[in-house]
């Protein structure tokens, strides 16, 4: 049906464009000025420059994704100022501003694809590894907006909003195939097709598949004859396939995405049988999103969106103790919703946004049972609704002074209402200097996993959890100097109240989520970006953050004091051959067991070529070039306190555009 809808107007448009241009060229300027046009990029009026945004923003483009050899969203985020990524050999977790709670499944960062919320409705997980719903090759750009975003986006926009914009069919124009091979028997293939008719009809279809055998790993914590002397063989495998489609016509965009990822668990997490390849998780997510963007006269536009999402999780955990069994852990989420947003500049000096959102969680079900002998531990079925209203005004007080004020009201069926404001003052004393003062509040509601997950032995539910809150103040200074040099310095202070965190109940040792921690942190970030005329470009950043748990006075776990990055692209042959070099440093981090994960310094290198042969792109990458040994602190479900990360690894990639 979708095909019928889109085929008709497409063919009509292609016939008419030829005629139109030929008569247009005959026209005089006066005649041209009388022609009414349909605007394609209606929202572009509201596209902002980095310096105009009421936050500190980083943008990573598809060009950088190619030239630095990024394989996943996690790779992209690792290169971003102040961000870091922790991996437990199953999931990847992003850390922001010194906060990275092990096993929080990225619930405190909101991830959007073309404005569509990705975080699921059971764990609020926004996966960033191979379980991410989009192949990174399809990314046009990633916008990383630091600081609380709840005043526009509601829950999860706690530390940052990561907005991913996908490519247009017009960027591909025809079929494209890509294949890659890497260390640990990793192979990936992608086939895409892009199509464009005239200015306003666009189509992109793509499918990807990945298979990785993974490594044979050694864990000293399991170094005994009973547990295969600590060696986990064939347990680190990963498979993934994903599909993406985007059809746009006039102001309509219909987007569909799906991913299925299977990952073996080599670590013996949750006390499961060590060296047993049957231990694995499957995560699948998919969505259909229809949005419509239309200008209403010169000064207003309306954006509407309806969507349906599905999330599916299956965990397979083997237990060798009595009874010897396979435990199945299940999460099933379905939700649908809509959003309507009105943008207007009707009032002189004001840019207004007014919006409403509704989400209906049809299913937020969790189940846990032993297969044989059958024993049911959890069968929790939930559904819920949330609706919200939001408003933002960008008020141009003076030519060089803008005041942003935004507020959002969210109403949860389960918790009631929460109101979150953001205020920002943006001042440009000189044309190349911008100073921003930002204050914002954000919240995150407890998810159904934290509220209701329980089994009869280890996990206890806590239906009385409240939302956690954060208040953040920031000062950001942005300065352009001469040609292509951009410097950003910022300082932040945040305070988290009622953080939802897992604790052992002193009464019986069971694990329970509670609103007990209060946290505050302060930090400084510095970044210098430079683009030279010769295509040479680079960025260097340093961030310092000091986090503290108010009860204990101690620094948080997995919270490095210093994070530094250097990224450079060297052009070897103009427009054709580039070397991308990345350096990443992170200082030591405290672990759950009060030990320390060592500081480390990693170098990645990618040699990328395009246009050497027509339509061909070839790249070769080395990750962790010097084979630096380093490990990440992990959650309480692991016997290990620190899990070692990959040593030196390689990838070659070939993309051909027909």
């Amino acid at each position, binding site marked *: 049906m979708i095909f019928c809808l889109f085929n008709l107007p497409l063919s009509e448009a292609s016939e008419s464009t030829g005629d139109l241009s030929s008569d247009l060229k005959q026209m005089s300027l006066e005649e041209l000025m009388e022609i009414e046009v349909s605007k394609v990029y209606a929202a572009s009026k509201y596209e902002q420059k980095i310096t105009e945004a009421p936050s500190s923003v980083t943008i990573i483009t598809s060009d950088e994704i190619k030239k630095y050899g990024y394989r996943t969203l996690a790779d992209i985020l690792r290169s971003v100022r102040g961000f870091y990524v922790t991996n437990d050999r199953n999931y990847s977790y992003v850390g922001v501003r010194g906060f990275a709670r092990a096993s929080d499944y990225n619930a405190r960062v909101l991830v959007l694809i073309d404005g569509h919320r990705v975080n699921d409705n059971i764990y609020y997980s926004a996966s960033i590894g191979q379980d991410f719903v989009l192949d990174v090759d399809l990314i046009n750009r990633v916008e990383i907006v630091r600081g609380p975003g709840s005043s526009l986006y509601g829950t999860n926009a706690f530390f940052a909003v990561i907005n991913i914009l996908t490519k247009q069919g017009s960027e591909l124009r025809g079929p494209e195939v890509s294949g890659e091979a890497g260390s640990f028997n990793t192979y990936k293939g992608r086939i895409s097709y892009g199509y464009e008719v005239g200015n306003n009809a666009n189509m992109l279809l793509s499918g990807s598949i990945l298979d990785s055998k993974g490594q044979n790993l050694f864990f000293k914590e399991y170094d005994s004859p009973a547990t295969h002397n600590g060696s986990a063989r064939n347990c680190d495998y990963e498979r993934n396939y994903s599909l993406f489609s985007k059809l746009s016509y006039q102001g309509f965009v219909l987007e569909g995405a799906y991913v299925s990822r299977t990952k073996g668990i080599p670590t013996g997490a949750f006390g499961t049988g060590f060296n047993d390849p049957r231990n694995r998780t499957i995560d699948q997510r998919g969505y259909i999103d229809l949005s419509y963007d239309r200008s*209403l006269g010169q000064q207003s536009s309306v954006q509407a969106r309806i969507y349906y999402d599905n999330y599916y999780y299956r965990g397979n955990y083997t237990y060798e103790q009595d009874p010897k069994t396979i435990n199945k852990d299940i999460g099933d989420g379905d939700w649908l919703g809509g959003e309507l947003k009105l943008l207007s500049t009707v009032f002189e000096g004001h840019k207004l946004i007014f919006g409403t959102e509704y989400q209906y969680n049809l299913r937020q079900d969790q189940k846990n049972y032993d297969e044989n002998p059958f024993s049911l531990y959890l069968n929790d079925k939930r559904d819920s609704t949330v609706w919200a209203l939001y408003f933002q005004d960008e008020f141009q007080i003076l030519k060089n002074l803008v005041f942003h004020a935004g507020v959002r009201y969210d109403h949860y069926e389960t918790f009631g209402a929460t109101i979150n404001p953001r205020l920002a003052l943006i001042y440009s004393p000189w044309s190349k200097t911008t100073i921003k003062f930002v204050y914002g509040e954000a919240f995150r509601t407890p998810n159904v996993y934290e509220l209701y997950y329980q089994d009869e032995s280890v996990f206890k539910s806590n239906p009385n959890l409240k939302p956690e809150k954060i208040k953040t103040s920031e000062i950001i200074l942005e300065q352009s100097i001469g040609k292509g040099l951009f410097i950003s310095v910022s300082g932040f202070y945040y305070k988290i109240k009622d953080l939802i965190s897992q604790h052992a109940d002193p009464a019986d040792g069971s694990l329970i989520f509670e609103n007990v921690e209060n946290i505050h942190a302060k930090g400084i970030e510095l970044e210098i970006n430079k683009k030279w005329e010769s295509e040479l470009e680079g960025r260097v950043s340093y961030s310092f953050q000091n986090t503290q748990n108010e009860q204990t006075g101690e620094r948080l776990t997995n919270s490095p004091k210093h994070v530094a990055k250097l990224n450079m692209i060297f052009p070897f042959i103009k427009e054709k051959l580039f070397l991308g070099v990345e350096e990443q440093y992170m200082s030591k981090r405290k672990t759950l067991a009060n030990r320390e994960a060592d500081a480390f310094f990693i170098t990645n290198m990618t040699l990328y070529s395009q246009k050497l042969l027509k339509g061909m792109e070839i790249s070769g990458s080395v990750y962790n070039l010097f084979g630096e040994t380093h490990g990440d602190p992990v959650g309480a479900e692991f016997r290990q306190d620190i899990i070692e990360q990959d040593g030196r690894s390689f990838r070659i990639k070939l993309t051909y555009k027909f």
Partner: protein
Amino acid sequence: MGLNSGVKTRIYTKSVAFSLWICSILMGVMVVMAIRPSDAYAQESKRGEYEVKAAFLYNFVKFVEWPDDKNTHADRTINICILGEDRFGNAFDFIKDETIGNRSLAIKRFKTLQHIENCHVLFISRSEKEDIEHILGTVKGLNILTVGDTEGFANKGVIINFYIEKNRVRFEINVDSLKRSGLSISSKVMHLARIIQG
């Protein structure tokens, strides 16, 4: 049983609430659209924004005089360059067969500023917004007609900048940038433009 039907009722009331929300939103949208019925009807005969802009660019070339026109290589091709994201699609397809005087026209697409010195017209796409100062610094003194369609570009020093007014394409000209560029534009064009100084 009892529990089950309870759940069903809850789901039912939520579906009703959701449908009501959707309906009220849709009605809101329809009301808003009804206020401007002319727009909806006019849709059919509308031209693509970038087709019209392409026609404008073609026209500008006719009315601009480059200093090297007086030179010997006056029969050289006139290069219209697009820097950054190309939103013109195939709107420029007609230009292959066109000539102005005895000069043929060519469209060139650029991602970077390399080899930009051969351009006569440089259309700077919205995608280059962050980089505009650098771009203008590079083209300085190169006798290139810079054109944009981004709010504020003319104030930054782009010579001709398109904007939209009442769904029609308009343009502004920064006369000081024009002076600095060494180009001259026919007064016919100047009369139609909104003039910007600085």
